[in-house]
Structures are given as structure tokens and as C-alpha cells.
């Protein structure tokens, strides 16, 4: 970075919040996905004005700017692929206000999602989006990736809970979208446009979130199925019986075995699938619903159905699910975590496709995920140093994407496109769909300053590259 530009940035940002040393910059060269890109400078802004000034400079001198939260992105979202400046927003975390009267939270972008959960609960309220990374991820990252977790089935994703934003645009303007009301039809819905835009259309400097009353009760069960397809029927039967569980999680046999091997919990290693169902709401309704779920599972062929009698038993059930991630990383150093999503009715078909892909490419592929909303997590365990195997992994990942789209689904239900899935965008959206997205990007960011290299594939880029 040219001395002259650095000097100008110093006029905006105090020295202790500008990181220039090589080791400091390397510490911002990665996220939880692949690849490593060294930024030329890391800036830790504290105000929207500082950010606005930086964006104006960036447009003047044409250097790229990469917003970053806690860098837990699994798709390369915050990676500074073209160098330039990393904007570390994780330290912009002062504001976390719970407005009990209006059922709102007003937050700075660097606030940790888990802290919003806790604060809301203290006030008897509930912020539902629950990505499993919520103890680490920033709300800014959640907004820009439109993150969600198990509760997405009943409560929807992050976008359902954002009603207003303060945004610095790529050209340095400060704007407000939406407001403090749930109903708002004034003009285009820019809030929804920014949410899920992966930091390519603006930098969120404050958000107004909608909270809901905390459900009074919940009940949880775990059901074991000798046949994978039967678990699929149980899931669809429950949903068509008019029950909308708060969560419905599925683990396949490879997963069950991995967990049991890693941390014995007494899981049935011969079963082809285990599902975990949680219902919440009014205590009376919850009792009845869990009973119905229990019956439907048994009728669909479950060999055992266990309903948690207390919080301790509930924790035990969820422990099995939480152990999946650590357990499978024991199987190899590299984990490729996909989140292709299909319509619910296609879950059995998708599961079948995944088994075929696993055999075809001879890979260590396990499947778990949020079965209720069709958001499966096929994970491939491999070693990125094994070049030959990584080639097969790339082919397999491509085929997973193709299967999901063919079955009427999408490339990504949760983790975003980033750099990893960019080559497959056109497959899902078509040429015209892509063109309109590009036009939006060009209108907001004429100089392609903000998070360039993401979402849109480079010319000629047609497949995922992990090596």
C-alpha cells in the first residue's frame, strides 16, 4: 500500500486501530473456509463516519475493501482475495439495547449473536436465528450471510428478524433502511437486499432486530430408524399432520458411528438414521404435539423413540447432535462442509444421490442437518494435502450442487456463495438472473470496491477449486 494512501487513512483512523505488521495482517488472511489472502492493511473502525471516509478514499484510489466479522464464514466471504484493506468490524460492538416495549433489539455490527440471545432472554424475549456458530459469529456476519440454524424450520432465517439497518454504501454514503416498525412498505425493501448480500453492497453499522416472546415450554425426542427412507417419511408425516417443530435434525449412519466412536453416548450404530425433534410453545400444546410426533415416528418404523423427561435428558439428546462436528473432524484434517438444500419432499431423493456420490468418488462423506427444512449438511472428510483425493472431492462437490439444483433446491441454504460456490451461480440462476444481480452490484458499487471477487464467478471459472 502506497505511503501516501496510508497517510490519508491515518487522518481518519487512529494508529492503534491500523494494523500494518506482517503478523497482524496474516492474522486476518483467513476465515473458516479455504484459502489464504494477505491484506495490505487491517483497519478497526469504531464509527460509521470513519467507515464512510475510508470508502470515499477507496473510491478515489481504487483499493478493495473487505468487511469482516468473526471470520467464521464457510464460503470465503471475508477473505481479501485481491489484497487491499480488511475492515475488522468485530470490535465495533458497543451497542446492544433491548427495547422491551417495542420487542426490538438495536445492535452494533460486532455484537456476538449469542450475547443477543442472552440479553433477549433476560428480558423474557427471544431472538430465534441460531446458527451453531452463534457463540462466536457477529450479528453483522449473520445479517450479511442471512444465517440460520435448527430453529429455521419454524422461525425462519435472520432476514425474518431484521426490520431496519444503518448502512455505509460502497461509495461512502450513510443510509438508513426500514425502521422500527414491523410493517413498512415505503419504497423498495433495501433491508432485504442488504441482508444476505455477503458484504458486497454495503457495510452494516447498526441493525434493528425484531424479538418475539419466549416460548413457555419445549419437549424433545430422539428416534432411531433402521432404514433411512423411513426417517424421511416420519419427517414429512409429522409436518403434514400440522405440527411445526422448532427443530428437526437428522444424522446418518456414518455420523452416528463417528459420534459414538469419538464420545460414546450409547447411540445405535446399526441404525441408518437418527432424528431429533423439538417442539415448543404453550405447555399443553407441547405435550400433545410431542406425543403425536412419538406415535408418527413409531408408525413410520422407528425402533426406539426417547422423549426427554427433563432438561438434563434434553441436553443429552442434543449432545449427540453437537458432537457431530468435532467427531467427524477426528476422521481427517480437512472437512468440506456443504449446505445444499432441497425442498422437503426431495430429502429422501437427495439422500440417495449423496450415497451414490459417496460411492462413485470413494470419499468419506457423512450427512447430517436440518431435515425439516431440507437443509442437509453433506460433509466430506479429507486431507487437503492429498492432491489426488482433493481432485475427487472437487468433482463430488460439483455433483452435489448439480443434484440439489436438479431436485429443485439451491446451492446454499446457510453458508453463502463467497468464492467457493461462485462458479455454480449461473447453473442455478441462469444467464439473465445473473445479469440482474450484476446490475444491482454495479449500481451500488460502480468501482467494484466492496468485497470484490465474491458471489460472481471470474470469467471462465466453471468449477469449484479447493487446491
Amino acid at each position, binding site marked *: 500500500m502506497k505511503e501516501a494512501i496510508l497517510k490519508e487513512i491515518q487522518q481518519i483512523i487512529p494508529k492503534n486501530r491500523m494494523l500494518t505488521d*506482517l503478523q497482524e495482517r*496474516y492474522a486476518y488472511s483467513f476465515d473458516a473456509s479455504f484459502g489464504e489472502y*494477505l491484506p*495490505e492493511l487491517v483497519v478497526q473502525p469504531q464509527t460509521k463516519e470513519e467507515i464512510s471516509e475510508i470508502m470515499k478514499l477507496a473510491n478515489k484510489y481504487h483499493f478493495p475493501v473487505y468487511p469482516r466479522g468473526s*471470520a467464521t464464514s464457510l464460503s470465503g466471504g471475508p477473505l481479501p482475495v485481491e489484497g487491499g484493506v480488511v475492515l*475488522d468490524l468485530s470490535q465495533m460492538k458497543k451497542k446492544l439495547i433491548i427495547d422491551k416495549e417495542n420487542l426490538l433489539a438495536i445492535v452494533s455490527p460486532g455484537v456476538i449473536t449469542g450475547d443477543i440471545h442472552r440479553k433477549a432472554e433476560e428480558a423474557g424475549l427471544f431472538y430465534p436465528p441460531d446458527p451453531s*456458530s452463534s457463540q462466536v459469529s457477529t450479528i453483522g456476519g449473520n445479517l450479511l450471510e442471512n444465517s440460520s440454524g435448527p430453529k429455521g424450520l419454524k422461525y425462519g432465517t435472520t432476514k425474518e428478524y431484521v426490520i431496519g439497518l444503518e448502512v455505509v454504501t460502497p461509495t461512502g454514503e450513510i443510509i438508513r433502511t426500514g425502521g422500527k416498525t414491523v410493517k413498512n412498505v415505503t419504497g423498495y425493501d433495501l433491508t432485504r437486499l442488504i441482508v444476505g448480500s455477503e458484504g458486497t453492497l454495503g457495510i452494516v453499522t447498526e441493525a434493528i432486530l425484531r424479538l418475539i416472546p419466549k416460548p413457555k415450554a419445549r419437549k424433545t425426542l430422539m428416534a432411531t430408524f433402521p432404514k433411512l427412507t423411513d426417517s424421511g417419511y416420519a419427517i414429512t408425516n409429522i409436518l403434514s399432520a400440522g405440527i411445526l417443530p422448532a427443530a428437526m435434525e437428522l444424522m446418518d449412519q456414518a455420523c452416528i458411528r463417528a459420534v459414538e466412536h469419538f464420545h460414546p453416548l450409547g447411540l445405535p450404530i446399526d441404525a441408518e438414521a437418527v432424528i431429533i425433534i423439538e417442539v415448543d410453545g404453550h405447555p399443553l400444546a407441547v405435550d400433545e404435539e410431542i406425543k403425536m410426533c412419538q406415535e408418527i415416528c413409531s408408525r413410520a418404523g422407528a425402533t426406539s423413540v426417547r422423549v426427554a423427561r427433563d432438561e438434563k435428558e434434553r441436553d443429552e439428546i442434543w449432545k449427540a447432535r453437537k458432537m457431530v462436528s468435532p467427531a467427524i473432524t477426528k476422521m481427517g484434517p480437512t472437512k468440506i462442509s456443504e449446505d445444499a438444500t432441497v425442498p422437503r419432499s426431495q430429502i429422501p431423493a437427495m439422500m440417495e444421490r449423496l450415497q451414490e456420490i459417496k460411492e462413485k468418488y470413494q470419499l468419506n462423506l457423512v450427512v447430517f442437518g436440518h431435515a425439516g427444512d431440507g437443509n442437509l449438511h453433506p460433509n466430506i472428510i479429507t486431507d487437503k494435502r492429498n492432491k489426488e483425493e482433493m481432485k475427487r472431492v472437487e468433482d463430488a462437490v460439483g455433483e452435489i450442487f448439480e443434484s440439489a439444483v436438479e431436485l429443485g433446491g439451491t446451492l446454499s441454504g446457510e453458508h453463502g456463495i463467497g468464492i467457493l460456490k461462485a462458479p455454480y451461480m449461473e447453473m442455478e440462476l441462469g444467464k439473465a438472473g445473473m445479469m440482474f444481480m450484476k446490475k444491482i452490484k454495479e449500481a451500488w458499487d460502480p468501482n467494484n470496491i466492496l468485497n470484490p471477487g465474491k458471489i460472481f464467478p471470474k470469467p471462465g471459472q466453471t468449477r469449484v477449486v479447493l487446491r
Partner: protein
Amino acid sequence: MGTSHRETRQLSTSNSLYEMVYDEVNRCIQCGYCLPACPTYESMEKESASPRGRINLVKMAAEGKIDVTEHMKEPIDQCLGCRACEVACPVNLDYGHILESAREAIREEHKKRNRGISFKEFFFSQLFPHSRRLRAAGNLVWAYQKSSLNKIMRKTKRINRILEPMVQMEKALPLVDAPVKRVKPGSVIPAKGETKARVAFFTGCISDAVLHRTNRLTVELLSLVGCEVIIPERQNCCGALHAHQGLKKNARDLAKKNIAAFEHTGADYYVNNAGGCGAMMIEYDKLLKDDPEWNDRAQHFSSKMKDISILLTKFGPLPFQKKWEGVITYQDSCHLRNVQGIHEEPRILLKSIPGATYVELSGSDRCCASGGIYNLLQFDESMKILDQKMGNVKETKAATIVTTNPGCLLQMRLGIERCGQSHVMQGVHLVDVLAEACGVG
């Protein structure tokens, strides 16, 4: 712009670092689950001060992308070694091993470049194990004059920077027990009443010098609950300070000597009262895993070594005599909690004291930033973390703050001094409190 080319210059690759930890650092999935657990990430607010950042920098150094001393050293020096990150990590990364290997690589690199360790590090490593030298300001000057460095280091500014933390530390040091009262190596103290077990007590080098009263009381409590206590001769420092400074070889030698000394006693359990030493010793099996001659013996030793709180809960209840007055709170020793996994027992013991009001300290599981000699080497950073903790301590309204490790104890006393509470608050070892409530003094 793009990435500048200046950075592609040749950097010294530490192949030993690659060999020691490359596989382990590659297991890090960079999920960041460790970030909220890390006290230095919280206080320094940047990724290079986080576990994930440090692990990545070790990886970069192993790959030769950054320099071991020029770039990796500072972030590694700033790590407390509290290992809270290990507890938070979903893939059970062995951060302790990564940290020690990084320190070893730094030391090797220094040697190669003929640089030696910094003046500050030398000064403290010479002094700290000999705590009596620290006792009076006069002694400080004495130590300084003795060290051959005084001629080179006459610049008063530099001296002041180093002496300030020590002068503050001095206030935190406890009173000395009369020599006749001290626990003597080689002695055997019979159990009071029925003998339930024979235990061998590890006195620890720092505790022995600074906290020998606590050591004596430890032995008395053990005897009270029915343990015959042997004080093995020829035991020595656990090696933690050496291992943490990257002197693994010295640490291994010390470990072997301790193993031999304790085996000799034939005791049922080995016991210690210092969280940090205990953590070091329960990991002797890891330290000596590549040594076929010692591997089994080390495993045996590690499995027998217990913290005092474990044995007191196992063989208790303690025969309490007095009613306690005032609020008690507890600050975990990181190595007791994060490495030995012990956090229930000290709390159970404190709550069992008749009359005691136990109030949980918010953030008690977070490091007090004593970190071996971190508080001396990284004084400012350490005090930032400590002062914040003292704010939480004040909220408990405690008159007694209890810890289970000499380093933490001194740090808490320093904290009490710094926040001007020494007239209403005392910092003591768990054993001191229990002994007092049992009427032994």
C-alpha cells in the same frame, strides 16, 4: 494494488517448528470457537492476540511465510498460556503443545542468531524461582548488581520499567514461616486416626520458598482426613517454568527426577497444592511419550498425581471447628481448571465451611493474567486484565478471595493492593482457609 512483492523475501524457515507442530496446527478448523474464551483477545482486541490467530501464525512460521522471531514471537509472548482455548475447542486441539513448541522454536532461533534471550527474560528467570531474593527492595538491587548485566544496563529508564512490576509484586509476598516450622524433605507425617491412604506430597519450588506455611497446612489437613504423608526427598521443580519458556529438555530432565523420587515412596497417591505444577505433572506422560524408557513410568506417575482438593473431598469431611465470617469467593487457577479439569471440588470444599457465605465470582473461570511470569514480562497487559477482574471481585463483596496456585495467589494479592482493598480483603490459598476453619494454624 494487489499484494505487494516486498513480502515474498526469503524468511528463515524453522524446520523444527514444522516437524513439531505442523500436523497439529493443520487440525485447527479456524472456527473461532476459542475466541470468546481468550482473555488476551478480549483485552487486546485483535486476531493476533487470539488462539486462532496464534495457531495460524505458528502455521505461517512453519511454512516459512513469516519469521519466527521477527513476527511470531510477539504474539506468542503475549499469550498467557492459560489454555482456556483448549476447553472451548471442538476438535480438542493441543494448544499447550503448540505454544511450547513455538517457544522452543523461538529459543532455538535466538541461539542460532547468537542473540540470547532478552534482558528482561534473563533477569526474571534468574530471580523468580529464588523468591527470597525478591523479598526486599534491597534484595532487588542486590540481584541486579550481582547479575553481570549491570554495566551494560545502566540506563535508568530501562531498569525502572523492569523494577516497577517487581516493587509492586513485593507487596504481594506473604510473611515467612520460621524455619523450624517448615515441611522437611524426607519426613513422614502419620495420619490422625485410621490411616486411609499413604500419599506423597509435592512441595513445589516456588511454594516451598514463598508459601511454606500453606505447605505445612496442606500436610496437616491431609493427616486430619486420614492420610499418612511422605515428603519425598530429591523432588525438585516440576519443570513448568522451563517448559513454558521453551526449555523442553530441561523440563524432561526435571520430570524424570521427580518420577524417580516419587516412585521410591511407594505411595498410593501423589498430591500437590499448586494448580500450575499439578497440570505440568499430570502431563508428564505427554512430555515423555517419545522416550520408551520413561513412557510407562510417566503414565503411572501422572495417573497418581492429584490436586489437594481431590484428596480432601475423597477422604473428607474435614473436621471443621470454627464458624467462618464474611463472604468467600473463588478464582479458578487456569491450569487446575483447564488442564486438570478441576473446578467443582474447591467450590464444594469452600461451601462446606460452617457459616461461610460463598459468592460465585463472575468470570472466575477466566485467567487472572498471572500466567507463570507473564505478569512480570507483560506487565501492562497483565494489569489491564487484572484490574478488570478486580472490578468483578469487588462486586462479590468478598472479604476473602481464594485461589489454588501460588502464582494466582500473588496476582490476586497484587490486585487487592492495586484497587486499594487491602484493609477489607485478603487473598489466600484454599488450604489456608480450610485449615483456619479446622482450627489448625
